[in-house]
């Protein structure tokens, strides 16, 4: 184990903690931006430090292809390679190989910007063959079959050198039904043993296991118990954020957070939208990652307390307000919606500035979640967002319910908050 996890404050199931990793002492709940190819698109590492980023996620699959884990190792590890002094987490590489067309298309465009891009328009799901050995897939470089085993995934991650590494899991989408889900769950447990055996740097890198089991509570329970038996430094809840309905999503998170150890970090993979992060934190999760803030920025969408703001919209042409008057980021302090509107989708600077703001927003959300839990203000409810009663920006649960000014809070949120023991009735119209 190469981490310390100390809970500093609680509200019912929600907890705020200090997660001390080899490269950085982090505060949870926290959001991790995704730096696929060893970089967050549109921001330098100085800017990421400036806005308070604590951990960046790197994609093992992409880094193994380019520039290769051997080269990264030779050059002193990913921290040095990308000049990031704080913490890093790498995923196992498995998800990228079986993930959706959009992810692969984006990866393909990034990897080779010219004629190979069309290769990635075919989902590798059809080309990936998952067996007990590992995941066989077609190399995007030369089409040759390649095999990623649990051992190989851990060896690559050992070379990359991240503070947290993920076990290779057999991940299936929650939209699939049938015996495949059970097969994947048991295989995940068998593979985690192989990952543990292959892990050569347990005193510098923390291996997290990933709970699978689809939407089946029985399977999820078996998987949680199996992983907890292995006494890993931390645990992730995987297989979500892939198209399942929200009501199923929160129930799986609630079940897993209730069963995972109190004294270890819990990471919900691929989440996500600010509202989802607030709900999952209320249910007892600590860590999140998602491409959403930066990807949506590249499409001209900013994250704001009321939900989203589409800067491409014609209404923005002459709007001289900042994106978010309550936001303290460099973009909101210096730029108007009108200026950002003239940039988005036409100039790279538009993507850069929006990515900056969106990441700041997510990281500020993380800070607010942590401090409000520590200070006992997590659930505080202000009925009218603009009123003088709203003394600080740190009231989180209800702040996110400002997205529903008519009180039409989704039922899944109400149900989840009920289980989390947080009263949001004053924000709901019914």
């Amino acid at each position, binding site marked *: 184990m190469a981490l310390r996890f100390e809970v500093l404050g609680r509200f019912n199931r929600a907890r705020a903690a200090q997660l001390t990793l080899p490269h950085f002492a982090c505060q949870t709940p926290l959001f991790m931006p995704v730096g696929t190819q060893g970089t967050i698109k549109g921001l*330098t590492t*100085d*800017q990421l430090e*400036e806005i308070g980023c604590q951990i960046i996620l790197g994609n093992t699959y992409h880094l193994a292809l380019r520039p290769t884990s051997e080269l990264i190792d030779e050059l002193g590890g990913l921290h040095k390679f990308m000049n990031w002094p704080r913490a890093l987490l790498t995923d196992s590489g498995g998800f990228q190989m079986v993930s959706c067309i959009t992810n692969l298309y984006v990866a393909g465009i990034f990897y080779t910007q010219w004629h190979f891009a069309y290769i990635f328009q075919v989902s590798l799901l059809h080309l990936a063959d998952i067996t007990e050995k590992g995941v066989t897939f077609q190399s995007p470089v030369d089409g040759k079959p390649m095999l990623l085993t649990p051992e190989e995934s851990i060896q690559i991650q050992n070379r990359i050198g991240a503070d947290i590494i993920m076990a290779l899991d057999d991940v299936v989408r929650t939209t699939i039904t049938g015996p495949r889900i059970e097969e994947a769950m048991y295989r995940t447990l068998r593979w985690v043993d192989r990952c543990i055996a292959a892990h050569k740097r347990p005193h510098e890198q923390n291996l997290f296991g990933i709970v699978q089991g689809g939407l089946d509570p029985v399977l999820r329970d078996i998987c949680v118990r199996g992983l907890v038996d292995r006494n890993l430094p931390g645990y992730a809840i995987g297989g979500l954020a892939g198209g399942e309905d929200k009501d199923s999503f929160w129930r799986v998170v609630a079940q897993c957070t209730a069963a995972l150890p109190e004294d270890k970090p819990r990471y919900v993979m691929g989440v996500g939208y600010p509202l989802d992060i607030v709900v999952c934190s209320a249910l007892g999760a600590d860590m999140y990652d998602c491409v959403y803030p930066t990807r949506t920025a590249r499409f001209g969408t900013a994250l704001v307390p009321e939900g989203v703001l589409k800067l491409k919209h014609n209404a923005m*042409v*002459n709007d*001289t307000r900042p994106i978010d008057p309550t936001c303290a980021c*460099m973009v909101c*302090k*210096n*730029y*108007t919606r*009108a*200026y950002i*509107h*003239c*940039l988005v989708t*036409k*100039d*790279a*600077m538009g993507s*850069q*500035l929006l990515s*900056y703001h969106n990441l700041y927003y997510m990281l500020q959300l993380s800070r607010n979640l942590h401090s409000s839990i520590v200070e006992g203000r997590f659930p505080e409810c202000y009925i009218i967002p603009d009123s003088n009663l709203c003394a600080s920006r740190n009231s989180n649960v209800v702040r996110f319910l400002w997205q529903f000014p008519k009180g039409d809070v989704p039922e899944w949120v109400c149900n989840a908050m009920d289980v989390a023991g947080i009263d949001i009735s004053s924000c709901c119209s019914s």
Partner: protein
Amino acid sequence: MKFAVKALSSGKARAGVVHLGSCPSPIETPCLLLSTRKGLPIFISPDLLSSLPSPDSNLLQFSPLHFSEGPSPKTISSIGGLHQMVGLHEYGFAAVARDSIQCLPECGSTNKTGASFETPCGRRLIKPVEYMEMITSMKPNLWATLADEVPAWANNKRNKTSVDRTVKWLDECIARSP
């Protein structure tokens, strides 16, 4: 703006210094103007720009035509001008109608009423009055007037026409100078 020559070489070269109202420090010449796209250097946001050597990197060149599709001169005025709009209050901006990449003079379409440019928004004919409306709203430290720019291989007649038009537009721009 103030400009003074500090030193001369034995030939024609000279070293000078430029004082601009918005820049806290004088800028030595010869100096390089950083080219921009919509007021910001490509890929370099203001917080990164400050890491370049200063004051040498404090002079930026821009083309008012980059804002052909908005924001409007009225909106730019209400924001307070270009410096305010792009958040570079202590930098100097020099306006030139053309840039070397995306707003290129199209001398074949230029006529007596205005200069034509190929832009990312298509071909645009800019009249002196419109150009000066942009300059007035953007408030650059330095600005070049609208010119009828022709390539070096233009014939004598076209060349003469370009000079006549440029001088005429110079007077029109000066008359509307803020």
